[in-house]
């Protein structure tokens, strides 16, 4: 059985005061607009927008703590990795200005590990963090704010066919269902003395030893989808155009939100095509380290 995200109605929530279609359109505009920029000055308003949405969402910290810690750690890890290797930003800057160099007091096969702390690397790591963090905050809020009973009609309202809209509805609910099945399988195998933490060996051996978890979860997902197809067939799905029980209607505030979203996207496109919003570092800082 498909389970849903931990959604609940929150009276004071800013996100939930909008039609879900309007919010999805705004979210997409926000997402694509953010992707146009590497300039931290341009990205900061997006981060403020995301933080405003988070703080007015009515979602409690204990509800999203796990998701935030996981994604926060993920983003931080990759920002630090990019900073240490200096690889991620090579497409957006060509020249680097060294602040300080750290050289390891040892060599490995003639290679001496060296960390170059440059102005560009530092600012790229900050930009990358702000950019991804803004998108992550807005994305994490979706499952907590969109009523699962409205998934299908939301996608239908965005112009998709009945079948695709319902498939999207099922897909949205597949993720938490997969999480539940994974946890149940882990519990069942731990009760047989299996310890995931102690899986060791080479890569192939490690994957093989994950079999007790991967196989049941995969088989469950396949059987589950067959059950869903049977259950849909047994209740006349796909006979013809379907009636959607839930009706969504745009209010003035929804139209304003869509307009704001489109405006943000339009301005972002114009700025990007005007050559603004690319990677930026303060010129004063470069002067300082020269």
């Amino acid at each position, binding site marked *: 059985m498909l389970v849903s995200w931990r959604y609940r109605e929150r009276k004071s929530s800013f996100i939930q005061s909008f039609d879900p279609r309007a919010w999805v359109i705004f979210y997409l505009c926000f997402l694509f607009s953010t992707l146009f920029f590497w300039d931290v000055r341009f990205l900061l308003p997006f981060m403020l927008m995301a933080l405003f949405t988070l703080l007015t969402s009515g979602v409690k910290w204990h509800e999203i703590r796990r998701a935030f810690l996981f994604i926060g750690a993920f983003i931080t890890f990759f920002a630090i990795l990019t900073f240490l290797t200096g690889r991620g930003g090579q497409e957006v800057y060509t020249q680097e200005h060294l602040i300080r160099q750290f050289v390891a007091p040892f060599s490995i096969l003639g290679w001496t590990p060296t960390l170059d702390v440059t102005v560009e690397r530092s600012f790229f790591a900050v930009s990358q963090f702000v950019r991804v963090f803004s998108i992550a905050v807005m994305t994490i809020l979706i499952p907590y704010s969109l009523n699962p009973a409205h998934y299908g009609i939301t996608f239908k309202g965005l112009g998709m066919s009945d079948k695709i809209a319902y498939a999207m509805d099922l897909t949205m609910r597949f993720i938490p269902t997969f999480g539940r099945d994974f946890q149940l399988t882990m519990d069942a195998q731990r*009760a047989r003395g299996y310890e995931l933490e102690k899986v060791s060996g080479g890569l192939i051996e490690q994957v093989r030893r994950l079999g007790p978890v991967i196989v049941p979860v995969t*088989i*469950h997902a396949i059987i589950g989808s067959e*059950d869903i197809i049977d259950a849909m*067939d047994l209740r*006349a799905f796909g006979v013809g155009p*379907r*009636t959607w*029980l839930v009706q969504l209607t745009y209010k003035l505030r929804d139209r304003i939100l869509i307009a704001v979203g489109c405006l943000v996207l339009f301005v972002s496109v114009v700025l990007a095509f005007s050559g603004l919003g690319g990677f930026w570092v303060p010129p004063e800082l470069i002067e300082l380290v020269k």
Partner: protein
Amino acid sequence: MSNIALSVKNLRFRYRDRVGAALHGVSFTAAKGELLLIAGASGCGKTTLIRAINGLIPRSYKGEVEGQILINGQDVASLPLSRISQMVGTVLQDPERQILGTRVINEVAFGLENMGLPREEILERVDEALATLHIPHLRERETFLLSGGEKQKVALAGVLAMRPSILLLDEPLASLDPASAVETLDIVRQLADEGLTVLMVEHRVEDVLRIRPDRVLYMKDGAISYLGNVDGLVNVVDTSEIKLPAEMIIERERGAPPRAEIRFVSRRAGDGESASAPLVQFENVGFGYDPETAVLKDVAISIQKGDVIAVLGPNGAGKTTFVKHAIGLLKPKSGRVLVNGRDTREASVAEIASTLGYVFQSPSHMLFAPTVREELAFGPKNLKHKPDAIEAQVRESLETVNLADKEQDPPLSLSFGQQKRVSIAAILAMRSKILVMDEPTAGQDYKNYMNFMDAILQMPGFEAILFITHDIDLAAIYANRVILVADGRIQADGRPEQVLADKELLRRCRVIPTSLLDANLARLRLTGRFMRAEALANV
């Protein structure tokens, strides 16, 4: 106008990937408003017959079909599945496999939305179906938070809202507590009385006989072995295969030579051993999955050497949460749980598993190995047992659950009932001191589960056994201690003869006395203990 709602003529079917035929020339008719009970052991072809009638065979389940099925005079072979589904409503054994909607109202409306009915009519029909099943209060609830009984009723409401002329119920009582099962059966009787043709596949024959099915169709090896009224059934079936009312069995066995009584291994502490050191101890345990809802409240209980405990209680009472604390999968929010004197907070689940083996409700969450043999060896290997010991443990466990011939088969290719037995054998092979089983009989036919319960109770290795069940007869026959759980609290804990004799207590815990319990209570002064129906015949 014909009174025949369903006509099955010489139906044969063989699944594409199996050797033998699942159905051999099945023929019968069902009249409008008839309630037909379909009974038989696992693998006799009951579910295949249901799939053929609702059109999933051959559309979803491929194979060779012969014969004809007419629904209200129309041949189903010529109809699309979507059209059949408007005439034939199907409720599956596990409502979890059927429910699609996130909220009850969306779930019940799903079929009607697909039929493209006007919104007003959908709402009217949804409310009507919810009212018929006495569940209007569930209308806005989220489906995945419902109890098992509520889910079953919601699944039924979703089908009834489409106003089919035939209703197929495939073991609808399998996951229900006794009170929910009685409520569901009463509704089924009411629907048949209102003119709906109902075909009900069910292992719990005794329960269904309460609502007076018009006829019984008894299947064996893919063919009809008996089709007729209820009274004639007792003369043709093997009572070890079908659970019949106790008085029927007592009557039939009276005068027959007494059967040898199965003696279970005594697990009580010997004279020289300490009877006071509990194997598992719950000290004022409190738990909730979220801060607002308490699932366990102040549970204080201990499991001693020699205990064979049956845990009874309604769906959603906290029984599974209770046993998950014993193996350390859940940690108490307040109080503590000690296993062999050690706090479960300080031990890993894998460490506790060597003391306490836990059989999960659903086998599909644990089976992964290419053969049954490897599946059974997995646990003992993790617990670092010696190879020759593993060999012996695997063999003995397979024999206990009657699957010795499936040793080299992939567990995932077996039927649900067989998979369940593999999951039990996998824990038996670990030779833990304490065996805990969560609904071991769910999805099993009567003969199989009685056989493996007999075998498990005769195994000498366990110091204590605990099983969660909805089957009161199982508690009466096998347990020496019954724990009643309701509303997250222990409501009663004692010998079966004490706890199960309190009718008011049972009613409060949604436990309905069975005919075997009544028969035992009536003879308790003579017997001094609970017995099987066959044994009561000689009292």
